[in-house]
């Protein structure tokens, strides 16, 4: 019983944190949580801009045509603190984006999970520790 109580209180405190923390802008005014998208493409441009970064990608369609998408990511300050520099994300890299599409159907998405083809997740640091990407982590070589 004691264990259950502890779990409950811990969960409540996490919820409390979520209540306090506010994002820079509203998800609901911009994206559709019922329109998940998975995009695989090539980065054409990385905008390291405030308040949030935007990654532009070319997605190849089955018929051979290419569709340009832009995907919203985290704030540059956080990205940098987690070890990503402009050297770490460049045009030409392959990326898989899981996210949610703009409400009006534009080729614009909120990036929930951004995975480079070397397995690294944008914003997560090299091995999930937040360590800088400096070549010292074996996981970086993959």
């Amino acid at each position, binding site marked *: 019983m004691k264990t259950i109580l502890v779990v409950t209180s811990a969960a409540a*405190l996490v919820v409390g944190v979520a209540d*306090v*923390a506010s994002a*820079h802008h509203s998800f609901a005014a911009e994206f559709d949580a019922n329109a998940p998208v998975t995009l695989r493409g090539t980065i054409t441009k990385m905008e390291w801009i*405030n*308040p949030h970064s935007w990654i532009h990608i070319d997605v190849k369609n089955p018929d051979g045509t290419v569709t340009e998408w832009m995907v*919203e990511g985290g704030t540059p*300050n956080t990205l*940098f603190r987690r070890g990503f520099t402009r050297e770490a994300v460049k045009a030409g890299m392959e990326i898989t984006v899981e996210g949610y599409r703009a409400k009006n159907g534009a080729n614009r998405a909120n990036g929930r999970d951004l995975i480079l083809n070397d397995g690294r997740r944008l914003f997560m640091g090299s091995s999930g520790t*937040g360590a800088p990407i400096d070549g010292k982590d074996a996981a970086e070589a993959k």
Partner: protein
Amino acid sequence: MNARVAMVAALLSFGVASAVVSLHAQSAPAAKPAAKPAAAKVYAAKTPWGDPDLQGVWDYKTITPLERPQNFGDRQFLTDEEVARLEANAAKRLDQPPDETVPATLVHAPYMTDPGRKVDEDRRTSLIVDPPDGRVPPLTPEAQRRQALRQAGNRNGGTDGPEQRSSLERCITMGLPSGNLPTLYNNNIRIVQSPGYVAITHEMVHDTRIIPLDNRAPISPKIHQWFGDSRGHWDGNTLVVETANFSDKTNYRGSGATLHLVERFTRSGKNNVEYRVTLDDPTTWTKPWTIELHMRTSEGDLYEYACHEGNYGLHNILEEARDADKAAAKNASKAGVSE
């Protein structure tokens, strides 16, 4: 906001106070009367001209919530077990891809944010230290009416134009005291001093306030500003900053232009500054209330947050709204034809 990663410095700086706190947590998880907050420890660093030295980049992120979750009752301190579990959960959220427990409607998955991995060093169940229940006092009837009017006027959340969006979405200001309270990222301030002045730059939305220390008269009560108007003085080793003259265009948890803040910054260690803010607004809350947190030397520099430079979000929100208007008009027109 969310991981100037290893908080080794913070952990090392816990010292005697947290040891005492953890004893409380282990032996007395039951209700205990709220203790009057102890005076901050003082680390007597001085500037070359003899003022207490608060200069540096200070990191205030913490996973301790502003308000005490209801299930803690009137318990002030976390147990060791709770601290361990909360910090493990926080690390997991930051270090793992989002799973099904992460709502789709977050602008950022937790791992893209920087809200911290540690509870505040005093291990309280809330950042609010007064009132003793750790919760924001109730809104006055006047404040409730004001909030209803704000909502009716779509002051925060309408999409007719940019004026209806929040000052944060518009990249105008995070406001006060929000600019010094934990959020999803950018939880840093830089303090710079010169004889007669203290300047505080808040990383979130990159606001700087310049605080005179020369006892000059406050500005006219007719003048209202986004960031209010601040005056500072020293109380021993503590910088006391009083701020009034707020604009009604922004608010903190329903506050009005009559909000009056008293902030206290105390250098409590080589790498530590204690921050306390008392919020008083008789038109908003039934009594004043106080938040306390402990800042640490930031692991890195303060970075620019030039929020205006690429604020596509505001454009996109308004574009979505206009497209929705057009779609609604088209549907209405179709309905009219079919009738």
